[in-house]
């Protein structure tokens, strides 16, 4: 990990993919590790299946709740096409961890994976795409935890300077009883793939 005073994460996706829950878990985990944390979320109309972008910054002392333009260390893409918009936050060092998952946009041709990756790679070489939705469907029977899988994967692979056990603790603290087991399993699944190539 770079020696920097703060760490900046942007999560992009579409309404209903659970980005705010992921943000809360990350924020909790970062604070368990003793960091100052600020997040910025959006509620309301954007939740109705439109583009969603939430952000979190943590470190020793954080002022702005918003990640600066070109200031993201990590961008989690819950939907692949949405990552293009998040280029606003990317620089040549930014890491993209993307779900190989496409939600069509009405009246528009679906972008191909290669087309998305090509644009992202013009800015940063660190672009990783993982079939998180498919993996979760196959192994856990639930696509909906793809975001949790990506987040867990980012932590266990050291893409976020937060201790994996803090993420697990945050999951236990924040996920409702009903879904807790599923989310813990998702975390363990990511842990089991810690050393696989992506």
């Amino acid at each position, binding site marked *: 990990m770079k020696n920097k005073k703060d760490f900046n994460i942007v999560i992009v996706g*579409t*309404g*209903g993919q659970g980005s705010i829950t992921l*943000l*809360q878990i990350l*924020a*909790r985990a970062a*604070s368990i590790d003793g960091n*100052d*944390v*600020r*997040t*910025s*979320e*959006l*509620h*309301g*109309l*954007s*939740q*109705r*299946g*439109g*583009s969603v972008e939430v952000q979190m910054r943590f470190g020793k*002392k*954080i*002022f*702005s*709740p*918003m*990640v*600066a*333009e*070109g*200031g993201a260390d990590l961008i989690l893409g819950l939907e692949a*096409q*949405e990552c*293009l*918009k998040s*280029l*606003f936050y*990317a*620089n*040549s060092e930014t890491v993209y961890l993307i779900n190989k998952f496409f939600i069509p*946009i*009405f*009246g*528009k041709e679906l*972008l191909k994976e290669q087309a998305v990756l090509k*644009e992202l790679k*013009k*800015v940063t070489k660190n672009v990783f795409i993982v079939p998180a939705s498919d993996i979760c469907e196959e192994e856990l029977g639930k696509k909906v935890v793809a975001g949790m899988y990506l987040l867990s994967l980012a932590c266990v692979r050291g893409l976020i300077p937060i201790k994996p056990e803090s993420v697990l603790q945050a999951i236990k603290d924040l996920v409702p009883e009903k879904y807790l087991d599923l989310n813990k399993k998702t975390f363990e699944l990511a842990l089991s793939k810690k050393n696989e190539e992506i």
Partner: protein
Amino acid sequence: MKILEKANKRVPFLGNEAIVRGALEAGVQFVSTYPGTPASEIGDTFFKLQRSKNKIKNLYFEYSTNEKVAMEAGIGASFSGLKAMVVMKDFGLNVCADALLPFCYTGTKGPTVIIVADDPSCHSSAQSEQNTRAFAQLAHIPILEPSDPQECKDYVKAAFKLSAKFKMPILLRTTTRVNHQTSFVDLGKIPAIKADGKFVKDVHRFNTMPPRVFSMHSEMLDRIKEIKKEAEKSELNLTSGKQVSSKIGIITSGVSYLYVKEALADLGMNLPLLKLGFFHPLPEKKIKNFIKPLKKVLIVEELEPFLEREVAILAKDANPRLQIMGKEIIPEIGELKPRIVLSAIAKLANKKIKALPSVDLEKVAVKRTPQLCPGCPYWLVFGGVKKATEGKNVVYGGDIGCYMLAGVPPHNIQDYLFCMGGSMGIAHGIKKATNNKQKLISFVGDSSFFHVGIPALINAVHNQSNPLIILLDNSTTAMTGHQPHPGIKIDSMPIIKPEDVVKACQVKHLKIIDPVNQGEFIKAVKDFLEKDTVSVIIARRPCLFANRVN
């Protein structure tokens, strides 16, 4: 419950949660609101709290029918001696302005705080990019501007104290990035409260009948003068930093302060910085003292240059040669972002910042508009309307709610969109202007109908126009988070059915249809478009998430 966490703990709170906690710590007794994002979670947090087993004894909370009655309820509570809080989004303040202005004349009895959430960049708003600061001049109401959750909590408490001391309602103005920001908040104690409201008659105090209103006007201005003295010494207006040889400094407030602090840390600078917690009244002496030794000052504020203008006026006296930088380098449209502020400060300080990769986002990024949820009953309403009006030249009036998605593909049936209840009022004007000839369908949601839709319906009936009004009844206030409204069952509260109101307004053509019955719905739309008087179809099918409340 998170909102009731013990005193002396430090917990991450959303700005809106921090506002609730601040009010609880201040001992608020009466809270009224109409839901509106970015303020929605404030009411929702009170609502959940007061329906839980941990409810605060003697605290009254209500979702009012609209912001005007929410404000009036708050005024009644204040006049009865209670600590009251009224909560709304920016446009709500326009709705309740009629009650707010005289309230500033009479002043408060019980301390009263009004929370108003602006939404620069319109993340959750149509209609306008409102800047509530303008009400400072119109209503003579003191305005405080917190920048983060800790300040949300502290400022609410400070506002209650100010209101108690100066007998004025105090407005707390937030913006989306404050309401929906999460960070750590230090918690204080929540006191027990009493239900001891009593209206003690005092005509001199509560009755604005002229000529008394003129002396009230004068008393209000006196109160503002007194609060100004308080603002001069208030720790909500913070000066920091050290003078530099180039004699530059920065004045800011609200969330912009955080971007300024971040930028100064990035640039490794510690410039003189005045952070204003009071927007109105401004601490004029403090500002004059701040700008006196400076050559150049940068004003960092979102939307209109209200602070910049005030500083320019004060500089005429305090430092006529001061160069004021503001809107010439900081945009007036849309919210500010950290990089915009960093660039502006770099410009002020003659520093270079690293260039960014140039990406033409307009070209590269995909645009994804919001969509109705899968299974939303409005798909059936819009689909049916399109079939019924195919090939006909029909005007479609939009209103505020999830159904304003009528304006996006694949629906594209929204020819105008204004304000709550506006679809029917404007429909009537179009009808009269075209001698009732042009066909028109006005959409209105159930919550918007109760909000301010009913007078527009009465007006159309009484003044004899003939729009077809489709009342989309999904049995909830869906867009802002599924809050209840007077038409739905909640505990043992009486229900007011929209059809009973419509009938009482003498509408002759009324049908209540579940839009699943497309044949019946389409036929009704076709029939009603030919009527000579107002017609109403209540398209009733609950939102998939409608019963989240219960």
